[in-house]
């Protein structure tokens, strides 16, 4: 006998289901329409390029859910729940195929192995996932779900999902008992439920089956109708936000809203792009961004999740005409929130649905800066940068003063050709904490015979951070100045000290016509310590840990070069828990190094980071590859009292130690 089950057994009036479905469908479509209409408020932003790459992303992140699965508990519960639902939905569609196209989906081995066994097991998985989710929301209550405000919208959804899944098994169980289905055990979930109904009279079974069949259908329809008005909307919107995600490098900020009547940047929702608005509906409120955000974790008022939710409420209230005249910048999103961001990009990295908080924040900063609405220390820095070309407010003529007293002469690349144009950058040139490392790098490169030169006082700040505080005009001015100088020089590659400088030269200068390859000094050191390169005279037999600078690692994917250098030196590299893409910001980025500390800070990001490094077993050295980190971490070891425990060293300083026979006092 061929395994099979009868289509629509016991439901004679099953065609009625379409009439019942219609009102639910109308509500669903209306909800989808209202949601999508909100996005049209935003300005255009073409995101239709590289379709294949976009589709692959949807399959990987919405289908397989790689990013969600980075976390064990939340990943497993989401995957089981959603894959279970996918499969159940697919099975329902397959039943329709038999009903209308006569495809035999409910008979034979396909019925037995797939429609019964596999589908049933996925149903069980979904039920388990739902239970895990409810446990997490009601009992475990992780902080990132309840702060800055809870998202109870999910509880009602999960209960509804539970009802749908359980009623489905009840229907199946009743059918198995009532029809004395010989293949009942092939549907393990339904078979288990069937045990509860054994011994019931046939008439009662059939009546209960009809009631639960219709109950199951109505519950499923209710879910569909409720979906666009609930947090379940992410089922539809998240694949869109993944599809339309930015494929540009994180370090290439979009040009922005341009100067309309309302000025540059974004002071209202209309000046954000449609994708920014779509992001707001895609947010699942999972809070992974927040749990990785150095602003939030240090006690600043910014949570990326909170930002997105506040903007979403504003968007919905705005179209409901009930926003009470609240301005997006200032009322809905306060200045303190906007200025708290380090632009470290951890939220971009963590978000399972590829929401982009940083460009939204920068757009709002552009607006504030265009209004002159900047804090006093930031104003001084910007004024100094436009006047002197450096953010430290020092004489541009003193830019190469760090070269004085070096026993090597550094080429002036404006006069002499060299392989590398070393773009030193503001901090490495002027900051007392960073200059020693700059000099060490110069000596190492010189001894290794690297052909390099610097621009001396012809160099101005690269403008990376000016751009990130929203000072687009200042950024452009600096780009023009630097390009004018560099165009008069002969070289093959640009080498930078500062990862922030590296980022903008590599990702943003090309828009202005710069075509040179850009490398970070850690990459040049990596080339030097290869077996055929510089002779290492001394093994550094010590345990060190390495901090990935946000703008080098997460932003530009340079993770391995500095690590290879450390290993080549003989150092034993121990990783901090937050490493590589999950590296934790030192608190200097996004122009924050120029601003007053936000009120109510509990623990500075740099302090959190040095504690993390000091907690590693027998690690006494924290290695950095960014001149700003030197200042941040040296301060932090003092304020945390870890001075005796942890030394902050630049990568170049360690290379110099390993290449110098006589380790003199100054090294």
């Amino acid at each position, binding site marked *: 006998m061929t395994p099979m089950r009868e289509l629509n057994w016991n439901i004679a009036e099953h065609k009625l289901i379409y009439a019942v479905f219609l009102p639910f469908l109308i509500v669903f479509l209306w909800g989808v329409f209202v949601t999508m209409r909100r996005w049209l408020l935003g300005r255009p932003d073409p995101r239709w390029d590289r379709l294949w790459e976009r589709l692959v992303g949807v399959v990987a992140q919405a289908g397989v859910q790689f990013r969600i699965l980075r976390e064990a508990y939340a990943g497993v519960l989401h995957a089981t729940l959603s894959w279970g639902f996918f499969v159940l939905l697919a099975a329902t569609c397959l039943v329709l195929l038999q009903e209308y196209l006569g495809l035999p989906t409910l008979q034979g081995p396909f019925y037995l192995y797939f429609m019964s066994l596999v589908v049933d097991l996925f149903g069980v998985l979904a039920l388990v996932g739902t239970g895990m989710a409810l446990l997490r929301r009601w009992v475990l209550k992780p902080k990132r779900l309840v702060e800055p405000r809870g998202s109870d919208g999910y509880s009602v959804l999960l209960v509804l999902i539970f009802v749908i899944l359980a009623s489905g098994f009840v229907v199946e169980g009743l059918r198995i008992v009532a029809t004395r289905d010989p293949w009942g055990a092939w549907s393990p979930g339904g078979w288990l439920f069937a045990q509860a109904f054994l011994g019931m009279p046939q008439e009662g079974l059939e009546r209960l089956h009809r009631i639960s069949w219709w109950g199951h259908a109505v519950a499923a329809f209710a879910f569909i109708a409720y979906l666009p008005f609930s947090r379940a909307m992410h089922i539809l919107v998240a694949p869109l936000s993944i599809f339309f995600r930015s494929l540009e490098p994180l370090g290439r900020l979009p040009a922005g809203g341009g*100067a309309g009547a309302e000025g*540059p940047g974004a002071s209202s929702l209309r000046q954000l792009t449609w994708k920014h608005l779509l992001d707001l509906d895609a947010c699942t409120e999972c809070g992974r961004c927040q749990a990785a955000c150095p602003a939030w974790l240090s006690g600043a008022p910014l949570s990326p999740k909170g930002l997105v939710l506040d903007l979403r409420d504003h968007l919905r209230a705005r179209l409901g005409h009930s926003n009470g005249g609240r301005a997006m910048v200032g009322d809905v999103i306060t200045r303190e929130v906007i200025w708290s961001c380090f632009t470290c990009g951890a939220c971009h990295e963590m978000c399972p649905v590829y929401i982009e908080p940083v460009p939204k924040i920068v757009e709002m900063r552009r607006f504030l*800066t*265009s209004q*002159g*609405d*900047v804090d*006093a220390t930031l*104003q001084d820095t*910007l*004024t100094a940068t*436009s*006047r*002197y070309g450096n953010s430290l*407010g*020092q*004489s541009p*003529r003193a830019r190469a003063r760090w070269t004085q007293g070096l026993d090597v002469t550094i080429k002036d690349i404006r006069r002499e050709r060299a392989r590398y144009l070393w773009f030193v950058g503001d901090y490495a040139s002027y900051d007392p904490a960073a200059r020693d490392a700059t000099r060490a790098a110069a000596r190492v490169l010189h001894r290794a015979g690297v052909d390099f030169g610097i621009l001396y006082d012809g160099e101005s700040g690269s403008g990376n951070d000016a751009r990130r505080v929203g*000072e*687009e*005009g*200042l950024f*452009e*001015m600096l780009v023009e100045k630097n390009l004018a100088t560099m165009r008069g020089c002969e070289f093959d590659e640009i080498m930078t000290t500062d990862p922030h400088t590296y980022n903008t030269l590599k990702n943003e200068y090309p828009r202005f016509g710069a075509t040179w390859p850009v490398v970070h000094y850690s990459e040049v050191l990596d080339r030097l310590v290869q077996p055929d390169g510089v002779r290492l005279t001394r093994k550094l037999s010590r345990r060190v840990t390495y901090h990935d600078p946000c703008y080098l690692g997460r932003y530009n994917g340079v993770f391995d070069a500095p690590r290879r250098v450390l290993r080549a030196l003989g150092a034993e590299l121990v990783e901090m828990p937050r490493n590589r893409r999950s590296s934790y910001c030192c608190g200097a980025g996004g122009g924050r190094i120029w601003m007053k500390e936000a009120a109510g800070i509990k623990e500075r990001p740099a302090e959190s980071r040095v504690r993390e490094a000091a907690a590693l077993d027998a690690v006494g050295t924290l290695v950095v590859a960014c001149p700003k980190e030197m200042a941040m971490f040296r301060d932090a070891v003092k304020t945390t009292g870890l001075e005796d425990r942890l030394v902050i060293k630049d990568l170049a300083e360690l290379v110099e130690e390993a290449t110098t026979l006589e380790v003199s006092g100054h090294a």
Partner: protein
Amino acid sequence: MNITVLLSMVPDLVEELEIDASGAALDTQWLRYVISESDDHALEQALLLKDRHGASVSVMALDYGDADQVLFAALARGADEAVKLTGIPEAGLGKRAAAATFKEALGGIRTDLILTGVQAIDDLDAHVAGMLGGMMALPYVGVTRSVEPSGEGKVLVQKEYPGGAAAEIEVTLPAVIGVLSAPQPPRYVPVARIREVMKTRTLDEREAVPATVPAEPAIIRLFKPESAEHAQMLDGSPEELAEQIVKILEDRGLAP
């Protein structure tokens, strides 16, 4: 209300000052100029009056240093017109000559209120504003921290005195006010707006009328601070150091 703000440039101390071969003047080759701080506040005071009460603000500067940059920045911040007085020597004018030159230039302009910084790092004894008031025979108040309109043709100014004392003084217009500070710090003007203004606006250039003033005092010698006495360094163990310190204090009659 028509307000004129007089702006002047002073050497930017971010660069080390060098003395030229004559030994009596700064070497202008290495000089970088910046707007004088209290002039910056005078401009902010004028713009605050404009924002709050409506006014037409014109700025005026002698053509030396970075006059163009300073004037364009003032336009970008909100000034309505900018006048550059040309024909000025490269190193600027003496304070009395500057006051007289401004007086001549202001002669043809209808203005109710003349605001300028009360002092500058090269005018610590606050000559320009006071002398200008005298030359123009107008009321003058200096060292103000706030200027507000009070009735027809009058302003109420807050003037600071040493020791934290302050006075409110009502001044009949037209008048000259020497501003120490505006009620709020000078506003930030984004670079894009300055560049926009430099492209779209022009400065009203006027030949400065040479002013005849009595000869200014001549500088005989300009010099950098010279260290007169050197610190005495103590050496030795903590006990020896303590003994030495006690002895020094006794020698000077500071310890019994």
